């Protein structure tokens, strides 16, 4: 213990004697350890920490599995879930959730509140108890008896000042009175964004369905279940298979080829993030390796100047293990100092990462530098200290005593081994840096390719916002159509507005369920019911988005409730359903309450271009448009094409809506450019972080190359002097030094390219329009790396060119 303390004191003194070396080493390590700490803290919060619910590993999502369409994450119907509930043997309970955003009025300004409509048993599945009042009763889940609500603690405090008498009071949601029956405890957290497709819920309401068989195809809910203790996900899946097969036999029209897929809530929430986060964790691992290689190189260079000290210690009786320990103490101290500075860097960079990943990282657990993260950093720093220290320590202590003790003695064989090790370290740095550069390069190209994708409409200068009407105030189609028409007329009259329209679901505005359709003259066999995304829109919507008309006509003002029922199909639909035929004049119909038979046929009057509705990298999908006047709904999204920056017209547009109805809220205001950017947020997040790490790697590799070449030049001053005495010119010396550096870089590039070809396959799921081994990307980043490396070599090479042969030879 005493010798350890002595080693530490000596190590501190030695490091203090070389402040420049110590500073560079600590900064280098801090960059590597800090990046690792930052990414680990995100990884810990997202992938390692439990979800903030009771016994969260038993909570699972039950998704519909549309086997003939390959959609394994489709929504479910209340009627199916009611059957699952009574027939299963594996769930403590299974229930439904679905996002809702009512306008809350009274007690202050009207406000759009994020909410969840939940089925019976929801609070049992979540193991959540109310702070005040009670949760919903089964009889409140029936249509007509569902005018009750439960507030979250946050909303109760914020909007009602924590009023203890709130239970039993009525509040207005979408202008309808709802009785408050409970307030949840502050610990109860909302379901994550990915489940609700919306922000954290502030209030709850019963689902109020009528659970009829003809509602089985109305799949607009999401199912969530709690497994019985001891039941595995596979057992639950098997039990549900039996149930869905039975339902398929009993209800072939709606349930043929329809299964379910169980996924744990954690997997569903963060599963898609796992590859990206692990990839980033791997990337920072590479940055740390490069940092370690750099510091090991510094230590090796330093050890040559300490050979005499080592020889004297050995001559005085220090064994090799004792000497190695002394060196390792120094490197571990460097590692720990790097760790402390790295923690500071991480605290700062975590907030940056969270800002970059706001649209990507779920906020269920807060990302903090907490105890597990501190432990990770401490272990990493210790390990790093040993890792980069061990090779230099072994080399430094493997030296020829007699030679080292002679003044000016040269130990060429140990020196050569050290040079080989230093060269291999630089080669590894270049190879690792190339892997990182290639990875970020591939993502940059992916984003460029995505920007080149034609979304099927013109996204420039489009302002969008949700305008959902209260069905209490606008109870039927004519009222809703009248409001939207007046709103559009007023907005189109605004200076700076080119056109405006409303649509039910915007491109990049979230997913949408398919609507079952029947095609005239085509009998529907069980399980072959055709379903396609259908968009309810006003005539102005297609014009405003500048969606191309390919054939026929767009909607007009005459396509109203009294006119002929019409529909537009997109090119993909026409190609798939009527290949080689003229789609104009063909007929389609949708199901309604009570089935198909009393629903009108709709005539195809036009063919429009394909729109990338859910994601830019998706294939062209079949799409239908129906006129809003013939298919009115109360929740639409307004789209305004402007002549100038769309944001500048926001207040004018809002004012027009409020002039129509002062209580009408608008929400989710965004420009189309923002929505497009959000649709590639995960890729952009990973790309930005990878590019930052690659930049750090490039910098470290350049410093590493510079260090090795500069050291080599200082060691070869004599040789350069001899060469000049034998007739070498400045350019010969330049070639000699640059050549040495470039050979190392070339070997590193070759190894890095091979490693990169293998490792970039991990990126496959994030790439679009570019292969993992894309030659152009690899060649470009290799060229960039080579140029930086040449600059790093050139500085010491210039110094070598200025060697005075007289001085160099006299130093011998």
């Amino acid at each position, binding site marked *: 213990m005493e010798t350890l303390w002595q080693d530490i004191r000596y190590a501190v003194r030695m490091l203090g004697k070389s402040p420049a070396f110590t500073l560079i080493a600590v900064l280098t390590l801090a960059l590597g350890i800090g990046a690792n700490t930052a990414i680990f803290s995100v990884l810990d919060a997202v992938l390692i920490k439990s979800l903030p619910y009771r016994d969260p590993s038993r909570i699972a999502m039950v998704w519909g599995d549309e086997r003939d369409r390959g959609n394994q994450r489709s929504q479910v119907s209340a009627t199916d879930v009611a059957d699952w509930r009574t027939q299963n043997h594996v769930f403590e309970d299974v229930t439904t959730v679905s996002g809702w955003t009512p306008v809350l009025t009274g007690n202050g300004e009207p406000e759009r509140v994020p909410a969840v409509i939940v089925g019976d048993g929801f609070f049992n599945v979540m193991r959540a108890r109310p702070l005040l009042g009670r949760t919903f009763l089964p009889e409140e889940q029936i249509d007509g008896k569902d005018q009750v609500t439960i507030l979250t603690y946050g909303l109760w405090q914020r909007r009602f000042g924590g009023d203890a008498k709130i239970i039993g009071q009525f509040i207005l949601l979408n202008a309808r009175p709802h009785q408050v029956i409970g307030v949840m405890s502050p610990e109860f957290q909302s379901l994550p964004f990915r489940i609700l497709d919306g922000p954290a819920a502030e209030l709850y309401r019963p689902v109020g369905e009528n659970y009829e068989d003809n509602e089985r195809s109305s799949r607009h809910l999401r199912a969530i279940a709690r497994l019985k203790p001891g039941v595995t996900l596979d057992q639950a899946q098997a039990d549900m298979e039996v149930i869905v097969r039975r339902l398929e036999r009993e209800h072939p029209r709606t349930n043929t080829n329809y299964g379910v897929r169980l996924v744990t809530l954690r997997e569903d929430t963060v599963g898609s993030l796992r590859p990206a986060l692990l990839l980033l964790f791997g990337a920072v691992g590479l940055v740390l390796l490069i940092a370690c290689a750099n510091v090991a190189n510094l230590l090796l260079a330093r050890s040559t100047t300490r050979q005499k000290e080592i020889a004297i210690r050995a001559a005085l009786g220090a064994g090799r293990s004792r000497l190695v320990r002394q060196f390792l103490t120094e490197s571990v101290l460097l590692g720990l100092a790097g760790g402390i500075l790295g923690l500071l860097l991480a605290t700062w960079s975590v907030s940056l990462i969270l800002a970059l990943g706001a649209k990507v990282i779920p906020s269920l657990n807060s990302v903090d530098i907490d105890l597990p993260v501190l432990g990770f950093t401490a272990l990493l720093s210790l390990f790093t200290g040993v890792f980069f220290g061990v090779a230099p320590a072994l080399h430094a202590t493997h030296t020829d005593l007699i030679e080292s003790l002679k003044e000016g003695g040269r130990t060429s064989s140990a020196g050569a081994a050290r040079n080989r090790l230093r060269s291999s370290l630089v080669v590894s740095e270049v190879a690792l840096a190339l892997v990182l550069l290639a990875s970020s390069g591939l993502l940059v190209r992916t984003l460029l390719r995505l920007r080149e994708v034609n979304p099927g409409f013109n996204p420039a200068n489009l302002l969008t916002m949700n305008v959902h009407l209260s069905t209490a105030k606008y109870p039927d189609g004519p009222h809703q159509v009248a409001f939207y028409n007046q709103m559009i007329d007023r907005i189109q009259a605004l200076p700076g507005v080119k056109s405006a329209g409303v649509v039910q679901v915007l491109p990049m505005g979230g997913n949408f369920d398919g609507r079952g359709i029947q095609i005239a003259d085509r009998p529907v066999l069980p399980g072959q019911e055709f379903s396609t995304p259908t968009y309810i829109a006003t005539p102005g919507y297609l014009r405003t988005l500048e969606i191309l008309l390919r054939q026929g006509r767009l909607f007009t003002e005459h396509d109203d409730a009294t006119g002929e029922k019409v529909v537009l199909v997109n090119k993909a639909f026409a190609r798939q359903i009527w290949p080689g035929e003229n789609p104009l004049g063909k007929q389609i119909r949708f199901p309604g309450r009570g089935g198909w038979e009393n629903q009108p046929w709709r005539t195809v009057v036009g063919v429009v271009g394909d729109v990338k509705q859910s994601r830019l990298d998706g294939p062209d999908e079949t799409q239908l448009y129906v006129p809003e006047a013939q298919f009115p709904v109360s929740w639409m999204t307004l789209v305004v094409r402007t002549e100038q920056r769309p944001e500048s017209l926001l207040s004018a547009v809002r004012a027009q809506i409020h002039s129509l109805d002062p209580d009408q809220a608008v929400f989710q205001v965004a420009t189309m450019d923002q929505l497009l950017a959000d649709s590639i947020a995960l890729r952009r997040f990973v790309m930005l972080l990878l590019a930052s790490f690659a930049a750090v790697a490039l910098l470290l590799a350049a410093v590493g190359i510079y260090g090795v070449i500069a050291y080599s030049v200082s060691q070869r001053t004599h040789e350069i002097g001899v060469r000049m*005495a034998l007739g*070498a010119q400045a350019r010969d010396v330049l070639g000699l030094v640059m050549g040495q550096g470039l050979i190392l870089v070339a070997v590193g590039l070759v190894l890095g390219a091979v490693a990169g070809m293998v490792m970039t396959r991990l990126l496959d799921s994030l790439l679009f329009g570019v292969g993992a081994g894309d030659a152009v990307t690899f060649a470009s980043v290799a060229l960039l790396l080579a140029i930086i490396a040449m600059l790093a070599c050139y500085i010491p090479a210039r110094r070598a060119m200025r060697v005075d042969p*007289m001085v160099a*030879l006299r130093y011998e």
Partner: protein
Amino acid sequence: MIKLTDIEKFYETGAGKTWVLRRINLDIREGEFITIMGPSGAGKSTLMGIIGMLDGAWKGEYYVEDHAVHKLDNRHRVELHKKYIGFVFQQYHLLDHLTVAENLDLPLSYRDIKKSERTAMVADVLDRFQIVGKKDLYPNQLSGGQQQLVAVARAVIGNPKLLLADEPTGSLHSSQGKMIMDLLKHLNEQGTTIIQVTHNDAWAAYGNRIIQLADGWIVETTEAKASKA
């Protein structure tokens, strides 16, 4: 062949100029074997560096045959150096990581000579110096005498007219030293002009003129005693 007129060199120090060489005037005829002697710090090696064109910072006039070295820029000096001069050092200055053959090839590689021609010249020199068996050895595998033999071979491989030998025997014991001096004498007899620096009177006697330097001045020029020690 060599004509030095009023060659002077000094360093600027805090206390003013520190003179290394003062008004050096020297004529060296083709085929001469000159010995420069003097105590440490007399300026011997500096003078060798100037004659060998490794040092460019001096004043005065320096002619090699018809070439006014003092008027040449660095690039032309390097060209002249390559054409006329070979160097032999006390510490041999062989490159550790190159074999004997590669060390011999080194000065040729700086003279735009084709690889095949260079290989032939290296083979010829290995043969002339009887070191063919050592061609693949590294310098640290040779004795001091053998290393200096290789260094002399390297100095003459480009057929220089002037061979500058700065204490060529300084690191050798006497029998090895004699071998090297006999070799230099032999080269001189074949027409190579030689300037050597030595502290050893016996080796000085190999030359035909001895120049004594002290504090940067030429203090004495004597004809060497005939014949060798």
